[in-house]
């Protein structure tokens, strides 16, 4: 049902302000949605007199339902909430279904940050995030928000956080956002060096995930990140990478990422330059030819003394 204001007694004191299009073009007759146009006219009018009230709250809700990306409306709503002292829980309760309807909107997230930060509690947020990710498991806003929650409420050592990340990886081992979140709670968001013990645990975890889908960039990136954080050499992974690639058997390569790491491991060994060159050659010609120039560049580096590619 469209909602109009001109025949609503509660708005009889407001004269809507017309659109000013800045004079770029002489306006032809505008026949865009009467409902949206009228609501915007009333918003301009209440903004002009700095009115903050329940009816303004309703008006912003109405406009957001039609056009959630209109950032000025959100800003005015936030000011209204604080001016009239609306309970923050009520705002979150309204925000949840609104966010589910508008998955890629920036304004909703900033609004949520502000409200949850002021509330000082993350209760219920995990459930809300799960319902968002059910609709789009890689939504950038949702994952960034989850990181913010971990930091704001210091959830790094809460076992549920790692378990939840595991369940997200389990349901889609190719979800790069989930791997990134895991890195954030294990290493990235923390102070200090990663212990060798924890690194080993993570390496084992990641190896199991790679065996499920060897041609999957995310866990390979993750495992290299863990090695670097724990200051372990790439050669730690030599036996593991050989499960997926062997330069002596060029027909049986199951992961270009394994070949890539193997090339680095060989390059650092004495007397294995030839194998490194073979691995890079296979990548350039057979397993990742679209990036031939990159692999050939890496091959060129082998001839230089003391490289660490």
């Amino acid at each position, binding site marked *: 049902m469209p909602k109009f204001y001109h025949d609503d007694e509660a708005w009889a004191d407001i004269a809507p302000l017309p*659109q000013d299009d*800045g004079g770029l*073009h002489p306006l032809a007759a505008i026949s*865009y*949605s009467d409902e949206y146009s009228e609501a915007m006219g009333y918003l301009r009018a209440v903004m002009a007199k700095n009115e903050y009230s329940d009816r303004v709250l309703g008006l912003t809700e109405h406009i957001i339902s039609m056009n959630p990306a209109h950032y000025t409306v959100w800003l005015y709503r936030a000011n209204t909430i604080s001016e009239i002292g609306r309970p923050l829980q009520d705002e979150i309760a309204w925000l949840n279904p609104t966010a589910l309807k508008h998955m890629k909107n920036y304004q909703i997230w900033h609004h949520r940050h502000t409200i949850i930060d002021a509330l000082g509690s993350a209760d219920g947020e995990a459930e809300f995030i799960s319902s968002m990710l059910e609709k789009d498991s890689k939504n950038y806003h949702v994952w*960034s928000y989850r990181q913010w929650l971990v930091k704001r409420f210091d959830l790094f050592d809460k076992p549920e956080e790692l378990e939840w990340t595991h369940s997200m990886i389990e349901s889609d081992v190719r979800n*790069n956002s989930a791997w990134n979140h895991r890195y954030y709670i294990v290493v990235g968001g923390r102070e200090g060096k990663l212990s060798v013990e924890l690194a080993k645990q993570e390496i084992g975890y990641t190896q199991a995930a790679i065996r499920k889908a060897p041609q999957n*960039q995310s866990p390979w*990136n993750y495992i290299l990140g863990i090695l670097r954080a724990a200051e372990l050499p790439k050669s730690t992974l030599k036996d593991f990478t050989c499960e997926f690639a062997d330069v002596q058997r060029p027909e049986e390569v199951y992961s270009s990422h394994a070949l890539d790491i193997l090339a680095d491991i060989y390059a650092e060994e004495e007397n294995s330059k030839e194998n490194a060159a073979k691995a890079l050659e296979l990548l350039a010609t057979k397993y990742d030819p*679209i990036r031939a120039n990159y692999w050939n560049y890496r091959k060129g580096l082998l001839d230089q003394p003391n490289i660490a590619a």
Partner: protein
Amino acid sequence: MSLVSGPGRAAVAGLPGDMHLFVDKHVRYIQRLDSRKDELEYWLTEHLRLNGLYWGLTALYLLGHPDALPRSGILDFVFSCLHEDGGFGAAPGHDAHMLYTVSGVQILATLDAFGELEDRVKGGRQKIGKFIADLQDPKTGTFAGDEWGEQDTRFLYGALNALSLMGLLDLVDVEKAVQHVHSCANFDGGYGTSPGTESHSGQVFTCVGALTIAGRLDLVNQEKLGAWLSERQLKNGGLNGRPEKKEDVCYSWWVMSSMAMLDKLHWIDGEKLTKFILQCQDPELGGLADRPGDMVDVFHTVFGIAGLSLLKYPGLEEVDPLHATIRHS
């Protein structure tokens, strides 16, 4: 400039053998965008109007048709979005925000119109510079988008971009901004919106752009990042924004401009990417879409064309990968 999508769709089955860029169709497409005020979507995208004008204008310059829109009309509109405090809103009556302020400055730079700015608003350049500088967080060095305080490396890059176009970088703490960008570097070599957030090609562009402006590319692990960026190319030639995501024409810009700044453009297959971009055209009504078969819009149109410019597609003007504007010789 309208952000309305369509009217046409990119060709679904690919174009015939002699695939080429339909320059005249795209020029007409952009010229017609503002005649669509009877469509609801025109008004629902009002919050992007100034961005849209920058996208359309930049596309026209790259296509070699800089005069296809009236200069004075553009300037009238741009100045009508400028607030007293030096910030630009998306359209008249919209609040000032970093994203529109950057578009406003990019348009003024493209039209070489800083003189007209001073004629209309005394001390205008300084006012805009101050609006941007005031959004820097003195503690962390990053930038907010507006008084509301949302922070993102997009805003940081936008700030340095606009200030460098106006010659006003000294208004902000560049070193602090640089350190913030550096703290956003991830384990996979990429960058996110803030420290620890997932690497994303769009954010890589903003971070590499900011560091390039600051002259601090030495902080970037260039080989690792170059490798990550080149890994964005999929078998169909198109580029994606993150691992295991779909290709999209706009990444032709975000990925390629970053690679251009790192001098690694040759690490992707330019021929395949060119083909992919050309397949995203609507050969009849003009415009480009995110991928073949989808609706066209001005955003994908400019970034597809800018990608082709970086690939040295014949007949196109040269794009400046750093400022995302036409390169004035």
